[in-house]
């Protein structure tokens, strides 16, 4: 029986999706909504929910688009599927989190063609099975959600001195981190820390 290649074992797919190739902190995907809307825990949770719903269902439906259709048409089909998935997602989000649409503004519909969907819609043609593809997508979504929620929490604490809206008595508040440029810088710092963590994990693994 053929041995499963190291790169495509389930454990590796999960590890890569969550840490090694984290969509936000390593691959630099879907940065705009994170920088512009995830400036607090609640903002980050809303973004994570919207991103998860739209991305998962768009990629799930897109996986049925046959490869024989030319790439130029496939890319339009992915975007169109995203726009169709957006309709029930917008209605559901409005129902469960009434302020979500207003808070996210234009960054909610922009999730339709987020860079993760654009890059991952083609991954079905490179991974052996649909099961592995879905595993990769689910854990990438979880990896993005975890990173964006952590980003929102840190940003709220250092930018506003609050945790989920409650004042926590921070001695010093850097409101610059609530601005878009602060968001960019914080993503950079978090990405560097994740790389350092990966280095430590690698060294620990070698020992």
């Amino acid at each position, binding site marked *: 029986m053929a041995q499963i290649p190291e790169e495509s074992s389930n454990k590796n797919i999960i590890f890569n999706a969550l840490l090694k190739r984290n969509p936000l902190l390593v691959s630099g995907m879907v940065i705009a909504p994170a920088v512009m809307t995830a400036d607090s825990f609640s903002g980050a949770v809303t973004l994570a929910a919207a991103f998860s719903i739209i991305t998962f269902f768009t990629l799930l439906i897109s996986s049925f688009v046959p490869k024989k259709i030319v790439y*130029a048409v496939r890319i339009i089909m992915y975007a169109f599927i995203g726009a169709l998935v957006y309709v029930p997602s917008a209605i559901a989000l409005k129902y469960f989190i009434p302020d979500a649409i207003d808070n996210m503004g234009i960054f909610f519909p922009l999730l339709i063609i987020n860079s993760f969907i654009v890059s991952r819609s083609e991954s079905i043609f490179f991974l052996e099975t649909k099961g592995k593809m879905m595993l990769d997508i689910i854990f990438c979504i979880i990896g993005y959600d975890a990173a964006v929620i952590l980003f929102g929490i840190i940003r709220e604490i250092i930018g506003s001195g609050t945790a989920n809206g409650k004042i926590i008595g921070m001695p010093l508040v850097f409101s610059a981190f609530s601005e878009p440029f602060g968001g960019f810088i914080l993503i950079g710092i978090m990405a*560097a820390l994740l790389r350092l963590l990966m280095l430590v994990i690698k060294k620990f693994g070698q020992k």
Partner: protein
Amino acid sequence: MEFVKNILLAAFTSVIIENTVFSRALGTSTLILVAKNRKNIFGFGLSVTYITAIVSVLTYFVGKLFDLSGNSYIYIPLVYILILGVVYILTLLCLWRFAVTLFVKIRKYIHMSAFNCAVLGAMFIISEYCETFTDYLVQGIGIGLGFVLAVYMTSVVYDRIYSEKTPYSFRGFPLLMIYIGILSMAFWGFSGHIANF
């Protein structure tokens, strides 16, 4: 004279003061990919500008045909995606028919220049803030040129950011984000913000 002055002011605003990447982070992921290859920057930038200009004109007519208030947020993205798809396909067909050399050159990245947050975001921003046909067109071109400026400013430091001399933890993407953050701070100052921190 007043008309020309207004156009120049609107163009300056959309390219510098309200730069799509540095003030709204739109198209940052695309910028990171494009800035890697300096050869493609202007070709890519021109195709983004061309697409934003065309779709912003079409967005003007969408505003005339549809009511953009109330529950329009549910179906308008679908309309915008259809517009983008039609513009993209027609552009590819025209290039394939009339400019084969150009078609071969840009077919690798034309999909990225059409389907990215900067272009779709431009359609939403323009429909929200612009009123006249000229406003739509000028803002559309301005947003595209603003994106080119952002890509160029990012690409000039690419080699240093990826240099072996840069500490490993910060090399590449982390430092790129910090650099974009610093540029974004400078552009934030352009728009008249006063720091209160």
